[in-house]
């Protein structure tokens, strides 16, 4: 099976930080056949839904990833991803290239997730923690990483995953958002600050607080 990465494959050594605004590294004016985000956005702003479809496909993994880790529920993440893209299309004329399209989209997704979580509540017992793909367990890099962490505890990988999920879900929504963006999706502090529209110091202190909480919840895995 060909793997489509939710985030860049950690085993590939590719950097996962910051939004690449275009596959061509764009900049310059949009030309015909130009598939940079900027060019696709310009076409979509005029109602070209095909161009927007390309943007959806290009940014789906990251947006889905953010929503999935925020909601801890695959179906909720998928439904919300759909909402985010539709909302983005409808508001597309407000997008002014002041940030990258990825950052703008991310901002919509974070807000949508926090609103949805507020509406859904914690929904204890309904959050799916059994979402770990069977495929993941066959992943060499994953197995290596996990066994690197649990040499003595010989913990079941599912248990580790469950504990990790539990600890993440115990964070407040705003703290979890920062952890997801930084620690799972690899965004640097400054980019997260742009997404959330807060000073970088706020991002650092939220991350610090969240890590502290996670550290006490997962201490036994960190020996």
């Amino acid at each position, binding site marked *: 099976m060909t793997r489509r990465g939710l985030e860049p494959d950690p085993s590939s050594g590719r950097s996962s930080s910051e939004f690449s605004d275009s596959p061509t590294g764009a900049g310059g004016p949009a030309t015909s056949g130009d598939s940079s985000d900027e060019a696709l956005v310009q076409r979509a702003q005029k109602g070209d839904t095909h161009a927007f479809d390309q943007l*959806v496909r290009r940014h789906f993994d990251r947006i889905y990833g953010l929503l999935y880790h925020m909601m801890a529920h695959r179906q909720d993440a998928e439904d919300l991803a759909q909402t985010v893209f539709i909302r983005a299309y409808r508001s597309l004329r407000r997008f002014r290239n002041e940030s990258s399209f990825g950052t703008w989209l991310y901002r919509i997704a974070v807000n949508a997730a926090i609103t949805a979580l507020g509406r859904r509540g914690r929904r204890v017992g309904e959050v799916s923690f059994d979402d770990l793909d069977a495929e993941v367990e066959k992943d060499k890099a994953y197995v290596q990483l996990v066994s690197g962490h649990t040499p003595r505890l010989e913990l079941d990988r599912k248990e580790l995953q469950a504990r990790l999920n539990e600890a993440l879900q115990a964070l407040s929504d705003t703290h979890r958002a920062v952890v997801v963006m930084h620690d799972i999706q690899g965004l640097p502090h400054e980019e997260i600050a742009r997404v959330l529209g807060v000073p970088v110091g706020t991002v650092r202190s939220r991350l610090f607080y969240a890590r502290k909480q996670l*550290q006490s919840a997962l201490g036994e895995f960190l020996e």
Partner: protein
Amino acid sequence: MNCEDARRQWWESDGKPGPEVAEHLARCPVCADLVHRQEALAELIRLKRFERPDEAAVDRVARRVELAIRGTRPRPVWWPEPETVVRWAAVAAAAALVGWVGRVILVRMERAARDEPMVGSIRAEPVRPSEGLQLVGDASTNPAQLRLRLAPGEVMEYGTGGTRPVRWTVEVEP
């Protein structure tokens, strides 16, 4: 560089410390241990990256988005966001409520002012001596009870009616 500065700079460097911090970490086991624990935790959290959407998810979502936006154009810039409409509606409702409450208070204050007691225009006259006295007034009174001392040892009380002219029954203590 002291420990406090080293830790702060390490944290702010977002995992890419400069040579000075690296040097401190090399010779300070306490800070090195703290950093090691932070890195181990980050690595543990990174395991979540391996959870990915199923292969068909992107197609499902793209198709549903396409269906929803087909034949439509992005809204014009001046078009308010749904959240903005909700916010405006909430503000308007709150303003209407404040206005209504304000009006009710004003009306009551006006009524209370109109109903100021005008004791001077009330006069008492006997109706049936066995029952007491009857106060006859053409002025309104406020809703509070008033006590009028008519003579030493003699107390009369009267309550309120609310319409004018008002007739007040006065009871005289024996």
